[in-house]
């Protein structure tokens, strides 16, 4: 639409064909791009993000039980970080998966699972949530959402898969299913459940 060629169409000899065809071609191009954007669904809805392949940002946070947990101390073990809150519906749906995961793959030297609370307005609700789903791994307070910002969180639930070397291998946005959980686990060298 930048084309101003009709201005120059005033001469007795009409403008060359290519110039007259330029606006329709531009218009067709615009429509084609819009069509492509409309018909192709956004492909990064569930995975990716700029942190994949980068070292996981370190943090030291306090768990609801009062213990200090630092990511650096878990170096050498694969880690699954789950950002959640008690008011978030999909978090509830995926909670049983995490319980199963911690039961099957957790333990000394195995997979470490950490929950990080995001915008939890009442800690009481979070405790009730943990009791309800019998979550046995540490769940951490994140005052000021520092860790959340450091991990580029755009919403919850969001799950970060970190390998033994401390590199982020996969990020899953939105509620996990068993398949999607296994995709992430496979990338950090943990057998799926």
């Amino acid at each position, binding site marked *: 639409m930048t084309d*101003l060629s009709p201005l*120059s169409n005033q001469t007795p000899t009409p403008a060359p064909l290519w110039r007259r065809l330029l606006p329709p071609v531009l218009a067709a191009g615009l429509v084609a791009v819009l069509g492509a954007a409309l018909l192709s669904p956004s492909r990064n809805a569930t995975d990716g993000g700029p942190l994949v392949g980068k070292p996981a940002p370190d943090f030291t946070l306090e768990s609801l039980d009062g213990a200090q947990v630092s990511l650096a101390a878990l170096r050498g073990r694969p880690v699954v970080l789950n950002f959640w809150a008690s008011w978030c519906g999909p978090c509830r749906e995926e909670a049983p998966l995490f319980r199963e995961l911690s039961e099957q793959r957790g333990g000394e030297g195995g997979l470490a699972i950490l929950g990080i609370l995001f*915008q939890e307005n009442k800690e009481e609700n979070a405790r009730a949530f943990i009791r309800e789903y019998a979550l046995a791994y540490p769940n951490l307070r994140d005052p000021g*959402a520092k860790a959340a*910002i450091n991990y*580029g969180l755009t919403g919850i639930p969001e799950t970060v898969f970190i390998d033994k070397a401390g590199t982020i291998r996969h990020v899953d946005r939105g509620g996990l299913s068993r398949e999607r959980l296994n995709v992430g686990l496979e990338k950090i060298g943990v057998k799926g459940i």
Partner: protein
Amino acid sequence: MPLVFSLVLCSAAALTPEQAARAEAIGQNLRCPICTGEPITQSTNDLSRDMMRDVREQVAAGRTDAEIYSYFAARYGNFVLLNPPREGVGLLLWGAPLAALGAGGFVLWRFLRRRTTATPAVTTAGEEDDPYDPYLAEVRRRTRQGGEGA
């Protein structure tokens, strides 16, 4: 998003007025990652507030604008930058209006230059001041043209 009852507003580090203005300006250009297209200075949710506090802390720590932007871009992607960087693909964006300006100006210049003969600068004041009458104008145009053609 539920309301969160916290008193985090005053907890940020004390900034000089210049620093506060800088932090505000940076915040204007950071997109709230969980809203639709609002900068973090506009949206009222907690994450934006926390991000804004983060910006203020970084400003207080003496980091440059570019460092702060790249800090957030490294975590959230370029998506978070409302002032798209003028490099790579961004050059296309920033260049397009300039190209339009240049191309349009060139075409306009050529068009205005095309006058072959200079018309004497006679203006009919009547034509200027009278209420415009398209019919009269057409008659005038026709007669003038006829005159020129003859």
